[in-house]
């Protein structure tokens, strides 16, 4: 047995005098296992290497712009002007737009996702459940370009009445205010809603997964105490799924931050100005990814600046996704959930 190394057992007579002999059994894995191990480990490492390479590439490409404007100034400046000497470029205006679009998207998508997930797990027969899951998965398969076009050509006009109502009735809240005679098309609000619909499937599937793992015993206990189905959901399913809801929302946020096509189509891609108040309901705004998509193919300095903006987005989405997986993994419900 060359694969198994076992120390000789002590002879019966001498074991008493020398005491027990410590024996470690080690097994050399078979060739099949070794190969399989190497393949899986290799794939895992390849993904990590890829991630690091993308980061290094962005860092090298952006070094020109970053050294020209200084990292701190690049991070805090809202302007983006390459027509002046020296060029004044900064990522803050784009970042503000990115975060605003993503937040509008999350505000729209999270409640819809939670109710969709509850409809699937708690209020459906087995047949309707399968059907609904299929529909949500289909929604995830729609190319983002189609979402963008649909939002641009169709949904935009339908949202404008909502924008009008919001600004007329809630205009006293600074973020809902609009400037006089401002156009309401191509707004962060509209882009955010479209992005929200795009991230809805991912949030729905994470929350659905954690809701479906709610211990049946606790659900029965709530019903047996005289609770309604909704009461049971509120006192058992939602508390149990809280980690999944937060994690899923952050995962959706990560997606929303990087959404490109829809915002490139919908927004005018003018960097957001921070100084005066932000008007999400009126035409204006830009996001990092949308801005990059619109400007790609410019001169080398501009491209370097775009790379720097991309690097910032890369770091932010990476951090968001990591926090999301930690939140989900740490919650009671998320233990078995794959992200």
């Amino acid at each position, binding site marked *: 047995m060359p694969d198994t190394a076992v120390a000789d057992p002590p002879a019966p007579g001498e074991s008493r005098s020398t005491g027990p002999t410590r024996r470690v059994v080690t097994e050399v894995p078979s060739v099949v296992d070794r190969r399989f191990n190497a393949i899986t480990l290799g794939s895992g490492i390849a993904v990590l290497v890829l991630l690091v390479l993308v980061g290094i590439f962005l860092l090298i490409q952006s070094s020109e712009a970053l050294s020209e404007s200084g990292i701190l100034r690049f991070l805090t400046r809202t302007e983006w002007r390459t027509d002046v000497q020296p060029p004044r470029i900064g990522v803050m205006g784009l970042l503000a737009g990115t975060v605003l679009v993503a937040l509008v998207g999350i505000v729209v998508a999270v409640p819809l996702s939670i109710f969709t997930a509850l409809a699937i797990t708690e209020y459906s*027969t*087995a047949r309707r459940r399968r059907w609904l899951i299929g529909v949500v998965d289909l929604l995830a398969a729609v190319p983002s370009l189609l979402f963008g076009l649909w939002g641009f050509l169709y949904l935009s006009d339908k949202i404008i009445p909502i924008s009008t109502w919001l600004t007329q009735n809630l205009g006293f809240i600074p973020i809902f205010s609009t400037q006089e005679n401002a156009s309401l098309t191509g707004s962060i609000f509209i882009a955010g809603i479209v992005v929200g619909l795009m991230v809805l499937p991912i949030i729905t599937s994470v929350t659905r997964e954690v809701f479906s793992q709610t*211990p049946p*015993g*606790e659900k*029965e*206990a*709530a*019903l*047996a*105490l*005289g*609770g*309604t189905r909704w*009461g*049971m959901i509120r*006192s*058992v399913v939602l*508390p*149990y799924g809280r980690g999944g809801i937060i994690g899923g929302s952050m995962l959706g946020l990560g997606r929303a931050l990087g959404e490109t096509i829809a915002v490139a189509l919908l927004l005018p891609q003018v960097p957001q100005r921070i100084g005066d108040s932000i008007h999400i309901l009126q035409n204006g705004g830009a996001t990092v990814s949308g801005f990059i998509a619109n400007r790609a193919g410019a001169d080398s300095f501009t491209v370097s600046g775009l790379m720097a903006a991309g690097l910032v987005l890369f770091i932010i989405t990476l951090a968001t996704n990591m926090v999301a997986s930690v939140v989900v993994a740490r919650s*009671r419900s998320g233990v078995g959930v794959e992200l």
Partner: protein
Amino acid sequence: MTLASERPFAMSLSSTTIEEPPSAHRVPIVGGPPPGAATLEAKGACAWFGERLVLEGVDLVMPAGQVTALIGPSGCGKSTFLRLLNRMHELIPGAALDGEILLDGEDIYATGTRAQQVRMRIGMVFQKPNPFPAMSIRENVLAGLKLARLKCDAKDDLVEQSLIRAGLWKEVRDRLDSPGGALSGGQQQRLCIARSLAVQPNVLLMDEPCSALDPTSTRRVEETIDELRGEVTVVIVTHNMQQANRVSDICAFFLAAENQPGVVVEQGPTAKMFSTPEDPRTLDYVQGRFG
């Protein structure tokens, strides 16, 4: 009868400051069940899972304030019957039923009767302790009030009374705000009993409440059942013959022949069922010859 008359552990109050027994005055709950124990009666109860008939023609009276034990081998329909009694059966997809379940003479399956109302009056304790882990001990006890939307002005009294009745007060009185999931298995089960009692039900159903517990915890739960006698009607499913003999006044023996639905073979006072039953199968079962 059984140990019931001796009440060996009824003095769980000895170290508390209250002089009267906990049941002396009920903490008032607005909108809760009517006071007192209620008689539960099954008339021709049948149950199906999908197309399969699992329980047929059960007629059984569970008298108010007494303890009824449902015994029989696994798969004979005892738990199904128990779940028929508070409309938990209908939660299983494909489940169907026939017959009547009368709570003080009124059919709980009558049209217009809400399952929530029925379950509020007929509480249930499950095989596996299932406290709400995110809630504190106190919140667990009061969970039923919130779920059934009942009002109570003396919540602290209700928590204390329910925990005393469940035999858990002395162990948790100093840590009512710690999570219910941190208790031991036996304590969790008594917390679940306290949670059910806090709604002040007329009937308490127990589905093998001690099968996941150690002997000491089992004894505590049996003491609790004993103390509930007279205040609440108790229906308990158990696989433990000694337990059925110890705690129950009335006993019903369920049996299912192979590929046949479960039926009640014999029922009667526990003492008679365990000494001189009429059906030889009952004698074989209570003496441990099969099952």
